[in-house]
């Protein structure tokens, strides 16, 4: 082709050539290529803060768990194990804990430290971190963990660099559980004070991963902490992976498509619209997906229930104040069917007490819950009708995501002659109504704060208002037993007390337990050694990527 022809040709196709160059440039800036092992996951809910003082929901807790450590933690078998504290003892009067701290733990590097090098974590940091939670200036939603429990004059004392003492007002059994919560993570004073309120986005802890970048609402990245103190049983340094990338795409359906494309290593739960495509009715992977992805299930300390407000003056739906009606609701629908058809068998029908499977205190032979007995339900409803006449329609409040269970229950009870209608509310408004004791019959869920049945039983303690006592249940025997169990030194006796309380809840029926939940984690094939636990905490310390 001679130059003139070439020139003409270029002139002719100038615009096409331009488009081609633009597209080529665009595509050239595609994703990253490196050989680092990065664990990729998505969180639909997003996180609002990386400050442990604001670790109020599971999403924030998980990030705090990645960045920070607490004095102690729970393992997969729900046993307390040492973390920053190597050992601890409780005084004879059961009011003082003394913790012996590790001396080889360093904070992540940060400009707030001299020379930017992370300094050693000492007992004073523990004192500062705990006092910060209590400080009203912090306005932490987690201040309740210490209120009315720790000593008012000298609650936290650093005896020396590696000994920390916690003084309580009175013996309080769940204290170790509380110290395992993310609110009780250890933070360095210098960094908190340097950033003030913006510490939320400039975290510095002692955890297995260090904060790297956060574009809010889009992505967070972490790098491995090269100086992390924990080692595996063979003496190798943890963690094994090089980093984490957590994105925040709000659509669960999009998350699923990305997971199937191999762009994500992990997915917690599954979008309702894809559920039946992936899972059989028995809750296992369909043959098409076996070998392509892995599914891990584990008992999850989460109970879904219907709550019934117990205060006469506040509950306009007076029928619900009749114990017989509350029991009839409990007898009148098939929990097994609910779990099988609406949940693809994820979870276990709550046929025992309110304490879920997986917690010491759960025993379906000692605490007999409600099973599906339509005849008994009908009989109870008829008795109430005979006494009080026609039953006005009862309204059950739910939010959109869970209306399927509520409608299922309503239709089964309607068939038995108990008229129930479901009203859908925006999730925050529903919670608000529950907190103000304005919801007389509502759908709710409760996740254990720590693996101790007390975390559930506190929901029905008469001296608690809402939250956690959303039903405002008050029963003298129950309250006495609850106070007793907080101080009971003998583990067996404590568990017997738990079961006694659970039986009262079942008998009085201020709530309708639906099912004990299960965690459902989907994993990419390249993920190894991922351990699912009962608090649904994503633990990446010991995960390996192929």
């Amino acid at each position, binding site marked *: 082709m001679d130059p003139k022809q070439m020139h003409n040709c270029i002139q002719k196709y100038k615009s096409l050539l331009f488009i081609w160059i633009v597209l080529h440039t665009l*595509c050239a800036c595609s994703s*990253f290529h*490196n050989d680092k092992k990065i664990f990729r996951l998505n969180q639909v809910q997003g996180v609002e803060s990386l400050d442990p003082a604001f670790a*109020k929901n599971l999403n924030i807790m998980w990030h705090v768990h990645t960045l920070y450590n607490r004095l102690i933690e729970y393992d997969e078998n729900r046993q307390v194990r040492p973390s920053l504290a190597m050992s601890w003892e409780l005084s004879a009067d059961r009011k003082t804990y003394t913790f012996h701290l590790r001396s080889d733990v360093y904070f992540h590097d940060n400009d707030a430290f001299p020379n930017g090098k992370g300094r050693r974590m000492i007992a004073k940091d523990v004192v500062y971190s705990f006092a910060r939670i209590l400080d009203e200036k912090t306005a932490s939603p987690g201040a309740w963990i210490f*209120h009315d429990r720790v000593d008012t004059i000298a609650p936290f004392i650093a005896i020396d660099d590696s000994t920390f003492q916690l003084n309580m007002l009175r013996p309080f059994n769940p204290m170790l559980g509380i110290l395992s919560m993310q609110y009780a993570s250890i933070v360095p004073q210098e960094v908190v004070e340097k950033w*003030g309120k913006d510490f939320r986005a400039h975290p510095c802890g002692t955890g297995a991963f260090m904060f790297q970048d956060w574009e*809010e609402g889009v992505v967070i990245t972490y790098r491995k902490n090269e100086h992390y103190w924990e080692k595996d049983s063979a003496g190798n340094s943890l963690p094994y992976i090089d*980093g984490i990338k957590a994105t925040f795409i709000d659509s669960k359906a999009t998350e699923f498509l990305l997971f199937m494309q191999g762009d994500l290593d992990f997915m917690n739960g599954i979008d309702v619209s894809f559920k039946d495509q992936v899972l059989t009715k028995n809750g296992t992977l369909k043959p098409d997906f076996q070998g392509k992805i892995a599914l891990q299930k584990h008992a999850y300390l989460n109970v879904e229930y219907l709550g019934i407000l117990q205060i006469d003056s506040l509950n306009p739906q007076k029928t619900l104040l009749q114990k017989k009606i509350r029991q009839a609701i409990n007898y009148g629908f098939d929990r097994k069917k609910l779990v099988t058809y609406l949940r693809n068998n994820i979870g276990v029908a709550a046929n025992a007490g309110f304490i879920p499977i997986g917690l010491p205190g759960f025993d379906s032979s000692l605490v007999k819950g409600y099973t599906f007995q339509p005849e008994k339900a009908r009989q109870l409803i008829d008795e109430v009708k005979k006494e009080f006449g026609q039953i006005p329609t009862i309204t059950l409040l739910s939010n959109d995501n869970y209306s399927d269970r509520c409608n299922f229950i309503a239709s089964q009870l309607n068939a038995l002659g108990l008229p129930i209608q479901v009203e859908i509310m925006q999730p*925050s408004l529903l919670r608000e109504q529950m907190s103000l004791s304005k919801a007389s019959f509502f759908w709710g869920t409760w996740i254990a*704060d720590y693996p101790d049945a007390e975390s559930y039983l506190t929901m029905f303690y008469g001296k608690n208002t809402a939250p956690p006592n959303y039903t405002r249940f008050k029963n003298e025997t129950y309250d006495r037993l609850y106070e007793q169990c907080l101080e009971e030194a003998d583990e067996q006796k404590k568990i017997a007390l738990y079961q006694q309380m659970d039986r009262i809840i079942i008998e009085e029926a201020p709530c309708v337990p639906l099912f004990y939940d299960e965690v459902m984690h989907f994993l990419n094939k390249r993920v190894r050694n991922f351990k699912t636990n009962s608090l649904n905490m994503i633990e990446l310390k010991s995960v390996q990527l192929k």
Partner: protein
Amino acid sequence: MLPFLFRKVLNSFLVLLGVVGIVFVLFFVLLPADPARLTMGQRSDAKSLENIRKELYLDKPVYLQFLFYLNDLSPLAIHGNTKEDIEKYDYTKLFSISNQNNVVLKAPYLRRSYQSKKEVSSMLLDAFPGTFILAGLAIFFATVFGILFGIIAALKKGTWVDTSVIFTSVLGISAPSFFAGILIAYVFGFLLRNYTGLSIVSPMWDYDPFQGRHLILKSLILPVFTLSIRPLAIIVQITRSAMLDVLSQDYIRTAYAKGLSKKAVVWKHALRNALNPVITSVSGWFAELLAGSFFIEYIFGWKGIGKITVDALNKFDFPVVMGSVLFTAFIFIVMNILVDVMYGIVDPRIKK
């Protein structure tokens, strides 16, 4: 021009004040929600709640809360001279009125989000570039192609070209953005991924723990295209009808009669006069897109004003809602003033 602008700015100020009043009344008088409770986890106690209420000024009577909010918002305000206040408001002191209080000048303080404790102004500033780029490119694309197709349809009136342009634009108008968005993301980002190289989610920046931030320009293709469909379709229709109107005027015949080429007549004489309604429509759309396009942001995982606002509404996060509503109102006001100025340039008759 100056008195006109002054009047406009004064009006706008009143509009903004009205917006603040309405949103405030909606949140604190009409809505039964208590935002302090919504910042807590599942378990809490009365004392924690009290601390939070105090921190969010929710323990004060409503009228005082309103006055405090206006004081925070106003560039000319009264603030304390404690270290905390100086840091918080970053003000320039004018004079003191008592031992503790100063009259000060400052940038409007939009407070911090109830939920995340992040400063609302920095939340908006973080989200705005994304929204601006998306809206700007979409409106640019829509305007250029909309006017072009509109002119072609007008010139070829009654032929198959005209009919197909009209048909396609009606199709574009009737496709809601959430439907078109999902369809486009699924087809080009999932089914045809291997050919297009695009993804169902298109954030502007990609992050890697080791290589940091990385701009992904190709991310723009699907959201910009989806977002421009509706304005494009409408601009086509408006241009077409305005052009048809103008082309039948006497002066166009005169222009042809004095021997001007078709190109000169169409582009210089007809188009300029037909542009007025198009400008109104383009500016309206642009302002609307700048206020955030929630569905597109949601579907493509794009960080923008729309997503922030909807999230905040769901959580009753008053400062963020107020901040974004004010911001949106401000954008509309600025756009309105700009459009008034532009009318004058395009059509000199309006200057008077």
